[in-house]
């Protein structure tokens, strides 16, 4: 901005010193209860007790980050955190009270009330009715929520939705089948129509903002090549595509893949699945959230997750050094994608709805906890 008016600017006005008191000034203030709603149902706060699913595991990690000071290298939690648990009802609610003696300073809010197991629809409704201060919003609802006046906070896209072909399933053993399906998928349509323009088409294993090389992976469909591959397969298999039975986004994406595969001449049916229960799918939709913004660490975590699914990362990943150059990281990603065992689909951001009184909230980066110790509440309690 221009620094000031010309030196000859005329000074006028009353000479009386201002004595106006600051009635409406705002700065971080202490007190109040932050109301949070999440979809997960946390059944045990004991970090040693395994979570039933990735949603519960993520919620549990957030609670641990609030109530413990730090995490040891062996991944155990230690020390008193910013909050302590004052009330707990397994799977339903937890109340956290501010720790006055927290070594990094007492949190601004006095307490946090977390309601668990709230559906996406109920969370959005409660945000609109000002019945909650902070709630997760599913990516496909983000745009809609913003249009309805909900205050939105969006992270960098840090969660990969991918199609993973299950190792050992005969229907998916022919690489041409996998490649044909991978090339037939219209990722842009998934982003534009199912996700309502939230997220990004994914061609690689890491997002562009992390690796800097995602632009080298094509995310565009190539239906003519998909048809060509399909025509080379003498006995076209029928594949079953599984998706999480409680995830409407995965359901919609699975249906889109079924349509795209059919265009390429491959028959895919989709069905919701529960782990360890029949029917066993030939491919499944998987969500994978980055644990670090650094590409090498994230890729290593992804390879570990792939191994648990019985998918090999390939030679370039086996030899991935630490630290790794962008070229080595790209080589590993290329190796994974080229096997067509894993087909990246879209990158999803984490979306949060906030009430008007929430201040100093910043969407956490991958691996970071919710910054609820820094959040303060402005205005009267509802």
């Amino acid at each position, binding site marked *: 901005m221009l620094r*000031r008016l010309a030196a000859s600017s*005329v000074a006028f006005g009353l000479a009386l010193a*201002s004595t106006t008191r600051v009635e409406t000034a705002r700065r971080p203030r202490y007190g109040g209860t932050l109301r949070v709603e999440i979809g997960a149902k946390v059944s045990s706060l004991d970090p040693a007790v395994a979570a039933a699913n990735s949603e519960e595991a993520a919620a549990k990690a957030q609670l641990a980050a609030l109530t413990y000071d730090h995490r040891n290298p062996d991944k155990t939690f230690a020390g008193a955190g910013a909050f302590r648990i004052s009330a707990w009802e397994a799977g339903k609610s937890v109340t956290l009270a501010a720790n006055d003696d927290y070594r990094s300073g*007492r949190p601004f809010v006095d307490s946090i009330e977390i309601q668990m197991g709230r559906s996406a629809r109920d969370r959005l409704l409660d945000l609109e009715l000002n019945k909650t201060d902070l709630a997760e919003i599913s990516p496909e609802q983000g745009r809609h929520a913003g249009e309805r006046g909900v205050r939105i906070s969006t992270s960098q896209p840090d969660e990969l939705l991918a199609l993973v072909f299950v190792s050992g399933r005969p229907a998916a053993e022919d690489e041409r089948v996998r490649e044909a399906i991978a090339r037939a998928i219209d990722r842009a349509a998934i982003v534009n129509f199912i996700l309502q323009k939230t997220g990004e088409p994914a061609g690689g294993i890491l997002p562009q903002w992390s690796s800097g090389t995602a632009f080298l992976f094509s995310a565009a469909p190539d239906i003519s090549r998909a048809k060509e591959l399909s025509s080379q397969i003498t006995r076209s298999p029928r594949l079953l595509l599984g998706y999480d039975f409680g995830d409407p986004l995965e359901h919609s994406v699975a249906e889109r893949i079924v349509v795209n595969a059919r265009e390429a001449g491959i028959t895919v049916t989709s069905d919701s699945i529960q782990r360890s229960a029949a029917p066993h799918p030939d491919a499944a939709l998987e969500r994978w959230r980055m644990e670090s913004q650094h590409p090498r660490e994230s890729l290593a975590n992804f390879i570990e997750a792939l191994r648990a699914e019985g998918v090999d990362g390939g030679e370039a990943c086996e030899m991935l050094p630490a630290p790794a150059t962008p070229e080595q990281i790209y080589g590993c990603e290329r190796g994974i994608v080229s096997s067509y065992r894993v087909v990246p689909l879209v990158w999803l951001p984490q979306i949060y709805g906030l009430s008007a009184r929430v201040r100093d909230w910043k969407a956490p980066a991958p691996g970071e906890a919710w910054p609820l110790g820094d959040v303060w509440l402005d205005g009267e309690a509802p």
Partner: protein
Amino acid sequence: MHALVDRIAAASTAHATLVFELKNISSLSAVDANGIREAIQTELIHRGFRIASTPSAGTELRLTLSEGADSYVWVAEWRAKEQPEMAILAVPETSDAGAIGTKNSVRLESKLIWQQPDKLLDFAVLTNPGNPASTIVTLEPGRVNWHSPGAFQKGSSPGIDVLRKKPWPRDVHGIIDVEGKKILLPEMECQGDIENAAGIKCVPSKDTSFLDGPSIHVPGHEESESALLGERCGRLFIILASGNGDWTQPDTIQGYALANLDGQATASGSPIEFDGPVLALYREGKQSAARAIVHNLKTGFYEAYIVTATCSQ
């Protein structure tokens, strides 16, 4: 840059004609990208390559300036002996910034400290031993207020009036200098320990040097608010400067890096945006931070920010 050209040279036919195309998808400015283009072209010519501008005149060499979480990433793609070749390099340092353009190594973050409906000239954050909340001192035309933790909620902030014989100028500026134990206003100076309101004494002063504005400027932003930060980013000095609009427009603060105080300042990192003009920008102590006063045009409030520069070396 040399490593990249080495890779291209090793995999290409000697004295080949290259059609060089550069694409910048990083946060580097167009000026920096052009600097990199020129430097690489010069280096390629030095190695015996010919550079053509017509697409069909030679081998296409495409360089993409990209960026990841850890560093800049430069990707060169070309064909050699009918085979596609690729080189990917991390470019993490600013050491040769002058030769190949400047890496955007300064990340800015702003934190709102205070806002009020009345005109605000400057502020200071005083830490209280044993108390996590700080006391905020605010300077208005003719008034200094001390807002101890919680006091603002009751509207009973203590303060002192600074009486001046003449009216305050419309473009009044003022500075709180905690270390120097003084508060400067046009033709007025208050001296004493800033932490103690009762000990402050205000007298007329002829010292108007602070009204001259910052002693260092970014070219093209001579009339902007600017502040030279107390810490360097490696060897580089860091200047923060506001935009060039007037007081009716949203504004930005941009970080600039320069190797020496007489040298050329180059934009570094992304600017941060504000909903109104930046009215004042002052260095905050000896740190990589500055105090910014913003007039928020949406709310009408005057806002006090601490803007922190992080050096991503």
